[in-house]
C-alpha cells in the first residue's frame, strides 16, 4: 500500500462559510503534494481536519490505511503524522534543543517519567534532528527569542521527531528570504525522499511550488478546482484566472 493519505468528500463549514467543500485527493509515499489557493481558500482548515484538530462535517480521511474519524490530534500523531503550523507554535520557555527533546520524549513515550532529568535524555538524537534542519548552532537559544525563519526550522525538526510517514507543512518557508527559502525546500525534498515520507504542504511562493512539488491541488473558496502535475496546473485556465483575479483585486486594493 503506497497511499499515505486518502481524503474523500471532506467538508467543513463555520457558521455559514463553507471553508472546505467536498474535497478529495490522495498522497503517496515519498511524494510532495502542494496545496495552493488564495488567502482564505481553506488550506489551513484542511490541515486542521487532517491532523484531528477539527472534526469534519462530512467526508473521510484515511491515514496509513486507518480511518481517523473522531481522532484527537495526539492519536493522529501516533499514526505517524508530523505537522508544522502557519503561525509557528513552539514551547517558548524551552531552548531549541529542549523543544526537540520534548518531541523525542513523546516519541519514546516517556512524558510521564519522573526519575531521570530531561537534561540527559535523547540529546544525541535531538542534535541529529537539529543538524538535519540546520539549526544546531542555536541549540541553547530560548525559542521565545528566535528569528521567525529559525522557528520554522525548529518546528520542522519537531515534526520529524516521530519518524513520520506523513508530513503536513502549512507554509514552511513563510518569513524567509528567497535564497533561504529554496535552500530549505531543497533540504526538505532531500529528507522526504530518503525517508520516504509523503508531504502535503501549502505555499504562497509559486516558484517554490512549481520547482519542488510532484503534484499540485488548487483550492478556491473551499472547492478543489484543479489537480495535476505542475505543468498541467500551470496550463490550467481556471487556475490562471483565480490567481490573476486575486492579483488583480490585490492591485485594486492597493490603490
Amino acid at each position, binding site marked *: 500500500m503506497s497511499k499515505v493519505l486518502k481524503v474523500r468528500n471532506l467538508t467543513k463549514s463555520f457558521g455559514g462559510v463553507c471553508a472546505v467543500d467536498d474535497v478529495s485527493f490522495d498522497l503517496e509515499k515519498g511524494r510532495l503534494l502542494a496545496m495552493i489557493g488564495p488567502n482564505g481558500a481553506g488550506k489551513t482548515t484542511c490541515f486542521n481536519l487532517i491532523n484531528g484538530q477539527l472534526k469534519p462535517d462530512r467526508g473521510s480521511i484515511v491515514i496509513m490505511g486507518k480511518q481517523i474519524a473522531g481522532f484527537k490530534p495526539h492519536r493522529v500523531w501516533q499514526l505517524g503524522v*508530523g505537522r508544522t503550523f502557519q503561525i509557528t507554535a513552539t514551547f*517558548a*520557555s*524551552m531552548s531549541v534543543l529542549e523543544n526537540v527533546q*520534548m518531541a523525542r520524549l513523546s516519541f519514546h513515550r516517556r512524558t510521564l517519567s519522573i526519575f531521570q*532529568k*530531561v537534561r540527559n535524555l535523547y540529546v544525541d538524537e535531538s542534535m541529529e534532528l537539529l543538524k538535519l534542519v540546520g539549526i544546531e548552532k542555536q541549540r541553547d537559544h530560548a525559542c521565545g527569542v528566535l528569528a521567525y525563519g529559525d522557528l520554522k526550522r525548529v518546528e520542522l525538526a519537531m*515534526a520529524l*521527531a516521530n519518524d513520520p510517514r506523513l508530513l503536513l507543512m502549512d507554509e514552511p518557508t513563510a518569513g524567509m528570504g528567497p535564497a533561504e527559502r529554496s535552500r530549505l525546500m531543497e533540504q526538505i525534498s532531500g529528507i522526504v525522499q530518503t525517508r520516504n515520507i509523503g508531504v502535503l504542504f501549502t505555499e504562497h511562493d509559486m516558484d517554490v511550488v512549481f520547482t519542488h512539488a510532484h503534484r499540485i491541488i488548487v483550492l478556491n473558496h473551499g472547492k478543489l478546482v484543479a489537480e495535476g502535475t505542475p505543468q498541467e496546473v500551470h496550463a490550467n485556465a481556471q487556475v490562471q484566472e483565480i490567481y490573476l483575479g486575486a492579483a488583480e483585486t490585490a492591485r485594486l486594493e492597493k490603490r
Partner: protein
Amino acid sequence: MGFYVAQFLTGWADASGLFMVAVGLTLIFGVMRIVNFAHGSFYMVGAYTAYYLIAWLPSDGVSFWIGVLLAALIVGIIGVIVEMLLLRRLYHAPELFLLMGTFGIILIIQDLSRWLFGAEDLLGPRCPGLDGSVWIMGSLMPQYDLALIVAALLILGAIWMVLNRTRWGVLVRAATEDREMLSALGVNQGRLFTGVFFLGSFLTGLGGALQLPKGGADLLMDLNVIASAFVVVVVGGMGSIPGAYLAALIISELTAFGILVLPQSTLVMMFLVMAVVLVIRPYGLFGKAELAPHEPAGESGAVLKPASVRLKWLGAALVLGIILAPLFAGDFQLVLLIEIAILALASMSLYFMMGPGGMVSFGHAAFFGGGAYAAALMVYHLQTPMELALLLTPLAVGLLALIIGWFCVRLSGVYLAMLTLAFAQICWSIVFQWEEFTGGDDGILSIWPSDWAESRIVFYYLTMVLCTGGILAMRHLLFTPFGYTMRACRDSALRSASIGIYQKRHQWFAFAVAGAFAGLAGGIYVFSKGSVFPDEMAISRSFDFLLMVLLGGVETLSGPIAGAAAFTWLHDQISRFEFWQLVLGCIFIILVVAFPQGIAGFFSSKTERYFSEPTDE
C-alpha cells in the same frame, strides 16, 4: 400554592440582588477581559457610603433614593480612579499581575473601610414607603423584595437600551464581540475602557446600596459577595448580561426550593449549579469560546535552568541555617519557622500547578484544608498514629485532587480557576455542615504529634525534613520529562497535541500531584496547631496561598518560598499594627507596578548573572 408563589418571589428577589452584584462584573469582563477581583469591595463601599449618606441627608421621602444614587456615583468615580491610576498600567502585563493588583485594592479598601466606617455591622435603613409587607395569595411578602425585582428589571432594561440604542453602547458591544474590529474602527480604547469601568463600578455600588434595607453593611461583604458574583458571571457566560440574569435566577430559585427538600443545600447550591453548568457547557450558558485563546505566560516563561554550583551553595547555606536555627531561635520563632515551612510547601504546590502547569487555582485551600481534615479525622476517629496519618494524608488528598481535577482540566483559564473555587466551596460546606463527623464549626481539637515528636525542637526538625523534602521533590519533578511536558502543555496546547502529548492527562496528573503535596502541608499543619477548623478550607485561605505565590513571583522556583516567608513574616510583624492589610495592599500594588516579577523574580533578575555562571559539575 400561595406558599410556592411566595417562595418563588423570594427566590426572584434574591436573584435580583445577585444580578445587581454580577452585572457590572460581567460588563467589565466582556469589554476589557479583566477579572476584577476588587468588585466585591466596590459593592461594600456602595453599601457603606449609602448608609452614611442616607443618615446624613435630611430624612424625607426621597433622601433614601438620593443617597443610593449618590453612593453609586461615588463608587463609579472610585472605579475610574482605580482604572486610571492602576489597572491601565497592567493591561499588557500577564493576567496574574492584574489579579495581584486587584487583590491589593481589596486589601486597601478593606482597611480603609474599617477605618472610615468602623468595624461594627450596620443595620440597613428602611426604605420609606416600601418597608411594609403585602399579602400575595395568602403569604406575606416584604414590599422591598418586590421593589428589588422591579429595580433589577429596570436596570436590565436600561442597560439594554444603552447597549442597543446609543453609539457608545454599539461600541461596547462591538468590543465584547470582536476586539480586532474595534481597533479597526479607530476607537479610542482608553476612553472606552474608562467609561465601561465607570459603568461597571457604578452598577456594583448601586447594587450594594440597594441591598441595604435587606442586608445592611459589614466588613465581610466584599469576599462574601465576590464569590457569588463570579459564580453568576461564569454560569451565565462571561460577558453576557442576559446570561447573568438567567444564571442569577436559576441559582436563586434552586436555592429557594432546594431549602425545602434539603435544608443543608443552601450553602452549596450555587457552587453545585456552577460545577454542573461548567462541566456541560464549559463557557457558561451564553458564553462563547474565545476565538484565539491566548496562551498563558507564553512569551515571558523563563527557561528553566538546573542549579549552578553557586546556587547549590546558597541552598546548602539555607539548609545549614535551618539545621542550626534552634540554637538561636526562641520557642516563638520556631513556631513561626514551622508555619513558614508548611505554608512554603503549600504555596510551592500551588505554584507547581499555576506556574509550570498553567492552571490557576482559586480553591487550593480544598487540598490544604483537606489534608488537615484527613489527618485530623484519621486521628480522631481511628486513633491513627501520626506517622501513618502523615503517610496516608497525601494519598487521600491526591485522590481527592484526582476527582476534582478530572472535571477541572476540561476547562482552562478563569473558568478552570472558578471551578476549583466551586469544588473548594463544596468541600468547605461538607466539612462545615457534617457536624457529627467533622465537628462542624467547632472543628476537631487535640490532634497532637506522637510522643517522640512532641518536643518543639523535634517537631521543628520533622517539619523541616518533610517540607524541604516535598519542595525538593516538586522541584525535581519540574526537571523530569513529566515536568517538561507540563510546561509544554502550558506553553502551547497546539504544539503539544501535535507531537502526541495528551494534554488533559498530564494536566490532570499535575493537578493531583499539587493536591497531594498541599495535603501533606495540611497534614503537618494540623499536628503543629493541634486543631483544625473549617476556616482552613475557606475562600480566604485559598486567597492567602494565591497572595503568597504572587508575592514571590510566578517565574522563579524560589518564588513560593520567598512569598510564604514574606507573607507570614509581614503578617506577624504588621498584624500588630491595626491596619496591616492596608500596608500589605500597598506593597502589592507597588510590587506589580515596580517589580512585576515578584520578590524572588526581582532578586533573581539582579543576581542571575552571578548564580548562573557556567560551571562544570
